[in-house]
């Protein structure tokens, strides 16, 4: 008997259904599972609810008309603070939104990960997060002596989570070697099914978990499938292995200038498939040589 979770990006997307709530790990321009996102863009999937600390993942899904609802705290390309495709979709009123604070978002994922209906927080008090259309936040009163009234941040339960890691063995033992793991562990715990794109498959021995323990993301029982996609986070970074591609990000930003520009971007970088994508962005050598951006 073998125990093997390897699959293709197409296999992952075949598991997804219209109307699903999909959590996407990473943060803005960092460690986004972009190869999986591009595979969704190539599919017929629609009416998705996307839950993300958003970057180009959200922008591209908006541009391709895949998003029914977005649950977010921000969408940004960091060096280009305003994500143009996300802006266009919002300004056209073509997506529903639930806007949160970054920490509330964290709390919602944690509640889902703990299988709790909500977690209490003060965050949101005094703001318009509580008055936005489409969702009514409830409060809870502390049952202890202080009697403080708190916001009940609902669990952000996901149908599926997509994340990106640098390494995995075939059993789904993931290593995320970046200094900041972001909230990928919680995304993995908030969803019954979790698919990870990984830059490189390795044997269990090669993971050297004894020395890399702090990079081990989550117990493998949370991971449904792993897809080997070298540079699968590009154009976002998977530091320390490779950095954000600012030049490509500019190309992507420019694609929001007009529908034809987005059409051209799609044709070159998405529709032609991942091998063509890697070639079009310069190949391994160019990506490996990307300089570390300065924040």
């Amino acid at each position, binding site marked *: 008997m073998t125990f093997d979770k390897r699959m293709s990006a197409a296999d992952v997307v075949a598991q997804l259904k219209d109307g699903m709530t999909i959590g996407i790990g990473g943060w803005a321009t960092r460690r986004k599972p972009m190869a999986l996102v591009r595979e969704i863009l190539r599919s017929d999937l629609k009416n998705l609810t996307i839950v993300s600390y*958003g970057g180009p993942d959200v922008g591209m899904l908006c541009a391709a008309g895949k998003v029914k609802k977005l649950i977010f705290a921000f969408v940004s390309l960091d060096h280009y603070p305003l994500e143009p495709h996300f802006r266009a979709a919002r300004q056209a009123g073509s997506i529903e939104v639930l806007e949160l604070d970054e920490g509330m978002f964290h709390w919602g994922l944690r509640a889902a990960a703990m299988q709790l209906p909500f977690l209490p927080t003060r965050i949101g008090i005094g*703001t*318009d997060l509580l008055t936005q259309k489409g969702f009514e936040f409830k409060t809870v009163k502390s049952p202890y002596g202080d009697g403080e009234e708190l916001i009940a941040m609902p669990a952000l339960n996901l149908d599926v989570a997509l994340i990106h890691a640098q390494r995995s063995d075939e059993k789904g033992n993931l290593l995320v070697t970046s200094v900041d793991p*972001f909230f990928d562990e919680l995304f993995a715990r908030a969803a019954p099914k979790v698919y990870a794109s990984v830059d490189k498959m390795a044997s269990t021995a090669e993971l050297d978990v004894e020395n890399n323990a702090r990079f081990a993301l989550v117990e493998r029982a949370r991971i449904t499938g792993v897809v080997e996609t070298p540079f699968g986070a590009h154009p976002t970074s998977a530091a320390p292995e490779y950095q954000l591609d600012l030049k490509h990000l500019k190309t992507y930003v420019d694609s929001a200038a007009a529908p034809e520009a987005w059409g051209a971007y799609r044709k070159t970088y998405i529709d032609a498939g991942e091998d063509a994508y890697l070639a079009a962005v310069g190949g391994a050598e160019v990506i490996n040589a990307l300089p570390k951006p300065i924040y």
Partner: protein
Amino acid sequence: MTEASSYSLAELVIVACAQAWKDDGEIMATGIGPLPRLGTALAKKLYNPALQTTDGEVFYGDEPVAPGKRSGPVVYEGVANYDRVFSALWGGRRHAMVGPVQFDRYGQANISIIGDHTRPKSAMLGARGFPGNSICHPNSFFFPNHNKRALVEGEVDFVCMAGYNPARYLNGKPPRGLDLRIIVTNLCVMDFGGPDHQIRVVSLHPGVTFEEVQDNTGFPLAKIADEIPTTPAPTPDQLTLIARLDPNNVRATVFKDNPAGDRRAAA
């Protein structure tokens, strides 16, 4: 204290920003944007060596990390990944200085949208961490363009950051950690020390009048006194220090044409 004879508006602003963290003790100081960030660096060097400042990404620097290109190796003293940043700020040990797009008389700040939330005229970033920041730890503000589009009449279009607006309190109680400190702009320094937290002008940048500030503000301002002090000019030592903290001269790029700090000098 000797004042420098010549300094830029950016340098004046950095010195003003640094005041925000002067008496904070050992906390995380976050300045968003080059001038507030240089303000944290100056505060750490001049007043409060206990401050923890980051490299703008994920580490705390032993020394303040200069904005822009690194001129040499950086010694790190700790890690500030997002999970830890949230934990730190929820515990109150942080003082941030941020630059909202809109701001109102209550100190309510907006970086999310202009117009209606369901179909905005302009979609910007999203609320980011503003809601949590505003009720967990002290916050200060920087506006490079002090005008009525930024400091608005009425309320901001989407309140991302709680302020001193009793109509939005839960059960009439101010949010527990709400503590808004100073507002530094290209014209003046303000705080919330007026009656009922009314925003007041505490110092005017050299050559700026109260009337000019009021004319560029969408709500009525109070004054610290009839004779409003002038924002202290950088000393020669402070200018030397700022130059060391900003070897890439990023400060010269913030205001168009890098104007002089004393407008009378320019006239």
